[in-house]
């Protein structure tokens, strides 16, 4: 698909987190919806201002339930069906002795789902992203805060968005090439 605009978006740089948050709020108020913010520290309020909630906890829950089923199922199938062995006269399905491994498998699957789910939802690993083309962006991992309005935004236009972002009070507004 040929992009509609010659750039990926505009990137505004801010001196501190409060300025970024205010800018995100006013951009949202101005009707922009396709935005992203970049911060050196996690800032929950910014993500929420951008209208974002994550569904990751459900993936982790599903992973944990799956792990429990796999863990218990493995022990049940091997100890009761495939290789039954009488140990001290206990019933074949001696479930209390299966608790530990079931528990460990629950944790293992849930933890793996948390990590892999986070990476997958975030689209990582992703070696290239247009925002890396802006030289100043390397300070996003040090002490600068950035707000980007993407050219995919329905309300985006080259001149209007630029002048809107200039008015947000940041240090600079840069074009992000594709």
């Amino acid at each position, binding site marked *: 698909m040929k992009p509609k605009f010659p750039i990926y978006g505009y990137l505004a740089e801010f001196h501190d*987190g409060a300025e970024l948050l205010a800018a995100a709020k006013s951009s949202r108020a101005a009707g922009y919806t396709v935005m992203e913010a970049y911060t050196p520290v996690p800032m929950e*309020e910014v993500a929420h201002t951008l209208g*974002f909630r994550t569904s990751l906890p459900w993936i982790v829950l599903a992973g944990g339930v799956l792990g429990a089923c796999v863990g218990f199922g493995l022990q049940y199938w*091997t100890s009761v069906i495939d290789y039954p062995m009488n140990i001290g006269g206990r019933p074949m399905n001696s479930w209390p002795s299966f608790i530990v491994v079931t528990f460990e498998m629950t944790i293992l699957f849930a933890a793996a789902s948390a990590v892999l789910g986070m990476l997958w939802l975030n689209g990582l690993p*992703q070696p290239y992203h247009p925002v*890396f083309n802006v030289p100043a962006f*390397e300070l996003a991992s040090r002490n600068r805060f950035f707000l980007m309005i993407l050219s995919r935004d329905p309300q985006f236009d080259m001149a209007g968005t630029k002048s809107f972002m200039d008015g947000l009070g940041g240090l600079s507004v840069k074009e992000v090439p594709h």
Partner: protein
Amino acid sequence: MSSAKPTGAASGAPVIGPGHSLASVTDQISKIVLSRQTPTGWFIGLGVAMLGVGVLITAIGWLLWWGLGVWGINQPVGWGFAIINFVWWIGIGHAGTLISAILLLLKQEWRTSINRFAEAMTLFAVMCAGVFPLLHVGRPWLAYWLLPYPNTMGMWPQFRSPLLWDVFAVSTYATVSALFWYVGLIPDLATLRDRAKSLVWKRIYGALALGWRGAARHWERYETAYGLLAGLATPLVVSVHTVVSFDFAVSVIPGWHATIMPPYFVAGAIFSGFAMVLTLAIPIRRIFGLEDFITMKHLDNMAKVILATGMIVCYGYAMEAFFAWYSGSPYERYMIVNRMLGPYGWSYWALITCNLLVPQLLWSSAVRRNIAALFAIAIVVNVGMWLERFVIVVTSLHRDYLPSSWGMYYPTVWDWALYIGTIGLFFFLLFLFIRFLPMISIFEMRTLVPATGEEPPKKGLHIAASAGPSGEARRP
């Protein structure tokens, strides 16, 4: 570390030195890794640790060539150094998870500067621990038989055995610790990618950072994942040493068959782990000038944790003695008397001195403020916890039910070589870690300072200058 609160530094006790900003924290920690000048002490330390690794390889090679007979184990003491050292190392690892997971959930901000290297310590300690049971199985090249996989023998592992539970507990613990550690590193790897000057290191850190760019949506999912991992690691860490204690408690051996074992093992693990964190933190903060980040507040808190968990461990000792008497079982009663006054009595009293008496000094705030004393006490606790495992394993086994089956256990030079070798491996990995990865979590330290882009006034100015005021100078 939920969000960037500008009040972080100001709220109460100093968990970070005054005058720090986002930029100064980032520069000071990443400088340790990115600097081209490696302290001479690092090379000396790495060299000594490599000697230890050489000892480890030799000890393993000798064992594989001759078999388990080179160790001092025999009937009746079939669980010698291998199990003692396994439990000791696993216990040390537990403090790392406790600091990174439990203290995170309890919102203890002071954990922030010590969690990264405590997690690394966990990972390396678990690796060292894993060496012992794998070699102790006798034919290590068949150790994969421990895992449930469909095989031509038509057999499955025995899931009713605590030894198999251990396989699952320890391997899950190792995996989750590694995941937790790596996830914690991702934003810092991105920071190093953006700060590194040489293209090679930019590429290496860039690949490891997976393209992290600090997007708000990414942070949101990241924080969720990190919090959930902490929540999952918390019951896990408690379960691991509980399961390790089941190896003992489920067997019908006087001195092992006791319900006190799981809580007493978990407390002992935290006790020894914090002692190891102190043992490492005290020299590291000095050598790398990190007194602003690992403050006296941290040392004081860790000393208090050692004191508290030490008291729980001593309660365990008291209960062991009480139940041996109260059970009325002649074997249990004989076991405790033999433990205190028998041929290994010296080890019991050395253990009481190290774990009960010496840590009482930590009641005094003057001792907790004295770094040399803290370091000495931490070493004593490390020794004491090793002795505890020695006492539990050896004194219970060496007097079997029938006097005709009694015996003594003497570790051989190869037992010692393997043990010293794993200490070498531990420090070898630790030295590599502190040189090539940030030993303090940079992004979490940033959450402790006001979220503004102030440049540091003096310290780190040359770094800011070389980056250019907004970084344009460095990226084509």
